[in-house]
């Protein structure tokens, strides 16, 4: 009388079985495949956001330029910000977390694999939903309260590419009432609000999943303070998502209600408060900044020790500083609003709170320097990006401190100084960190190493382009270049630096092309990585590359921090690392054992339902936008039916399927393996 025997099996539902081809991807619940899909989708949106940025830069390279219409310009900067934050940096962070978190903590998958697939598909359809505004959305000029029509926004005014104007144009921050029903009629801002709602849902689901995974699925012996720092930062990010996303969800629902159902939360005409939106948005928006940067900090904390051949300096300080940043991040939101007319007491309080964030941030930077100090530094591509991160992030951090000097911020806010600051943090910081991670963990995906020459070309082009683009923006801002300006007159004397900035932007674009070429060719013809290409420290490298579907053939047991390193190295009496005599043998065994599980491994079975459930959600949201029409109401119904049927299917689908991975008899041929020491310097 076992529980499984009693369980009624719904025979009409069969688990999908494809292990290759498109169906294996559509139905997968494997955290690695999901991570890869997240990564490619995020990169696709990165390209879109980048093209938007280049169009903006073409417009700004000349004073009084008329390359874009005002409507197209506003739409492009709105979509650039929205895309880079919600469709690129966030999901690429999710890609890393998905792929790596289970590997770093020694698990075979996340706690809720189907939920994981659901959050990925919701993200994917959310991105498509948001971008479908270019095809279906409309952006109209406001009609004044007295009924005097504004002139047609999309077509009005000089410039070209006016067709781009039919997308959200209220800024990624959607300040009210400009983004409200009165001043942004048309449907584009609804696509924005509801698109973000869908994307937020995806992140919220995955945050719960990651938290449960970290607390329940760690390998034997892996105490919390033995987790790699990236796992720690992922956990912190998951908590940030969990606490901050409900706030933006509520705020976006309020906007949607204002726009669709005539509520007046943010409309002054009905006693609503436009500043309330700012409080809600930044109460989410500031933790969001740390959601974007902390994964990169985690990556850098993995990469620096490996290529310095030293443990992370002050491990627990780095971990707790990350947690402190996250905690403080909830108490500083009003520093985005120093000019909004909040009381001096509030301004002073939020200014001081903002200053305190510099302390844990400084701790991290100093510990990273301490890690490199006295090391044996190999300047590989991932290391270059990691060091670049530390340098560029320091600049962003320092300009961040100037914002906490409230009166100084009154001058700087809403100028290009701010644009410079957050690009130093989010591009010089997050993106450099993420590239460090891509180069570092590429072997885990492919079993190859990315071409080091191309990698370094990419780094230096990006480094130079980045600084050419964003360093002059500090100066431009202080010289009075206001943000979100379609045009500036020649008299304000800002043109020369804007030319430099545009040249820098195209340099970055060139560096990304080098990266794409490198990725493409290295996947096919890259040098084989072997099991341990970097002489790494953490247990994700104890399993062969590319990572087998089951991650670990045998569940790892961890006895200390940097467990993998200590399998290979002892310390002499001076405290110097000494490679064990049998280190290569250990690696050979790991490689062999990793490919040849001794017992059948049960993996979570694939499922159709996460995909189907996710399909229903954007359909409902399309219906909400067009709810006044019959077909809009029909869409809501259809979407709800799809999602709810998937929910039922999800609930009753059979739990047990045959595991696709069977143990095989040891094949002697596999014993021949090559140990490759990659020297990418």
């Amino acid at each position, binding site marked *: 009388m076992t529980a499984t025997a009693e369980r009624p099996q719904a025979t009409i539902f069969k688990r999908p079985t494809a292990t290759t081809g498109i169906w294996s991807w559509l139905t997968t619940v494997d955290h690695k495949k999901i991570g890869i899909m997240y990564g490619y989708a995020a990169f696709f949106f990165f390209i879109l956001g980048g093209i938007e940025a280049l169009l903006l830069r073409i417009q700004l390279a000349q004073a009084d330029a008329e390359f874009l219409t005002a409507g197209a310009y506003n739409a492009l900067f709105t979509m650039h910000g929205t895309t880079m934050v919600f469709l690129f940096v966030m999901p690429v962070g999710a890609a890393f977390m998905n792929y790596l978190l289970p590997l770093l903590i020694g698990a075979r998958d996340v706690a809720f694999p189907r939920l994981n697939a659901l959050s990925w598909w919701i993200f994917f359809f959310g991105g498509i939903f948001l971008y479908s505004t270019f095809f279906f959305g409309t952006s109209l000029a406001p009609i004044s309260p007295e009924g005097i029509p504004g*002139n047609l926004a999309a077509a009005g005014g000089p410039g070209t590419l006016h067709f781009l104007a039919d997308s959200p144009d209220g800024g990624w921050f959607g300040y009210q009432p400009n983004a409200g029903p009165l001043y942004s009629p048309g449907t584009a801002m609804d696509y924005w609000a509801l698109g973000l709602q869908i994307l937020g849902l995806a992140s919220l689901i995955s945050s719960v999943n990651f938290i449960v995974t970290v607390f329940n699925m760690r390998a034997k012996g892996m105490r919390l303070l033995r987790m790699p720092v990236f796992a720690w930062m992922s956990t912190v990010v998951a908590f940030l998502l969990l606490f901050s996303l409900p706030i933006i969800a509520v705020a976006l629902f309020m906007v949607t209600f204002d726009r669709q159902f005539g509520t007046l939360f943010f409309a002054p005409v009905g006693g609503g408060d436009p500043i309330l939106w700012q409080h809600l948005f930044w109460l989410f928006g500031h933790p969001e900044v740390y959601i974007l940067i902390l994964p990169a900090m985690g990556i850098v904390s993995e990469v620096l020790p490996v290529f310095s051949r030293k443990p992370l300096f002050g*491990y627990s300080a780095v971990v707790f500083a990350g947690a402190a940043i996250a905690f403080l991040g909830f108490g500083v939101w009003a520093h985005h609003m120093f000019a909004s007319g909040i009381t*001096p007491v509030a301004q002073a309080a939020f200014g001081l709170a903002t200053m305190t964030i510099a302390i844990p941030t400084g701790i991290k930077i100093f510990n990273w320097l301490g890690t490199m100090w006295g090391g044996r530094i190999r300047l590989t591509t991932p290391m270059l990006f990691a060091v670049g991160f530390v340098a560029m992030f320091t600049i962003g951090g320092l300009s961040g401190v100037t914002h906490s000097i409230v009166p100084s911020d009154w001058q700087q806010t809403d100028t290009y100084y701010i644009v410079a600051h957050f690009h130093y943090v989010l591009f010089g910081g997050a993106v450099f960190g993420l590239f460090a991670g891509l180069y570092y963990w590429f072997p885990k995906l492919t079993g190859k190493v990315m071409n080091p020459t191309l990698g370094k070309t990419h780094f230096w082009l990006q480094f130079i382009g980045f600084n050419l683009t964003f360093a002059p923006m500090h100066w431009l801002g202080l010289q009075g270049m206001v943000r979100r300006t379609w045009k500036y007159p020649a008299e304000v004397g*800002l043109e020369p630096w804007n030319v430099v900035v545009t040249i820098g932007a195209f340099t970055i674009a060139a560096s990304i092309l080098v990266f794409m070429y490198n990725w493409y060719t290295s996947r096919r013809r890259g040098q084989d990585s072997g099991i341990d290409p970097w002489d790494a420290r953490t247990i994700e490298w104890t399993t062969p590359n590319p990572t087998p579907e089951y991650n670990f053939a045998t569940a790892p047991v961890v006895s200390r921090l940097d467990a993998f390193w200590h399998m290979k190295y002892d310390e002499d009496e001076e405290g110097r690392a000494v490679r064990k005599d049998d280190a290569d043998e250990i690696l050979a065994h790991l490689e062999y054992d990793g490919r040849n599980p001794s017992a059948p491994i049960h993996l979570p079975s694939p499922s159709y339902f996460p995909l189907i459930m996710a399909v229903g959600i954007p359909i409902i949201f399309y219906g909400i936008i067009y709810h006044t029409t019959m077909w809009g109401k029909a869409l809501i119904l259809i979407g709800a039916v799809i999602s709810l049927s998937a929910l039922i299917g999800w609930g009753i689908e059979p739990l047990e399927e045959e595991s696709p991975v069977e143990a095989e008899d040891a094949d002697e041929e596999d014993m021949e393996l090559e140990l490759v020491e990659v020297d990418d310097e």
Partner: protein
Amino acid sequence: MKLVARSETPYDADPMARFRQHLTRTTGLIGTALLLASCQLFETGDQPLTTFEPQSPAAERIDDLFWLVFWIATVVFVLVMGAIVVILFVFRDKKSEDAKEPKQLHGSPKLEVIWTVIPALILAAIAVPTVSAVFDLTECEDGAMVVEVIGHQWWFEYHYPEEDISTANVMVIPVDQPVCAEMTSDDVLHNFWVPALHGKRYLVPGQTTILPLEASETGEYWGHCAEFCGLSHSLMRARVVAMEDSEFEDWVGAQQEPTTLPAEGTPEWDGYQVFLNKACTQCHTVRFDDETASIIIPDEAFNGPELTHFASREVFAGAVLPGSDQTYQQALKNWLANPPAIKPGSYMPNLALTEQEINDLIVWLESNE
């Protein structure tokens, strides 16, 4: 000497020498071009929106605070970047076979305390002048002259309640006197920013925000709306003109006067007729010396700038026109011909005026000094 030696080298005999000479020349040219360009890049004094030329006590205090923090940040910057460079040179793997592995240091509680406490102390030191400046610079002095600033898509309106004046785009203030800007918005959020005089402050519909202003020197200061306020946000600019007291009194007196109702048959009369017969009177207030002829649009209604003293203002259309490359008349002509073509989304529609009508209107508008 070297030059002579080089010129003696026959080009064709030594292609490398030729190449080198070309290279020197080209680099020289490029270098000169870059030098010239960078001179242009670092040229200052020609940026009317710069924050580095404060002309009021408040802006000066902000500027001082900025430089204080800037230099502290620069020290930190140099230390961190210097450390990175030193580390990369000193500790880079020498790749020799017998190189020893590094000592496996795990951290140092002493250092952790040091680099926690020192930044905290520095920040505490910066916090003192910051907080006092916040309290000193946000409130208006008692008895300051009040100017109400009302934001519209996409121009600033200024009301002088004591003086009962309404004007647009150009705020006129007496020099060396505290002025209190009481600000609100008629539609969306705007942000009033005149860098030489103070930092930014939002204009929020349904609320009143305060910005204390004072100019230490007479002159014209440029401003810009700094909060994204819709389609033509980039074309919402402002000017503040600071005058000597007596001049300001004269200005107030002149602004309080109504303008002359044109006599029938004059060229101004024709322009006035165009104004009456097209939709202009739906939005624009004009006070005439003949009160019965005055056109008063109530504040609650949708309105455009008051035109009574239109020609007393050097700029119009949100302080965007006239541009540097056109005369006042040319700019006005272009504007009246098709406002949305200059300012996308403008509430002043294209009225399809004929050239004659435009010329007449300009004559009348220019008479409203």
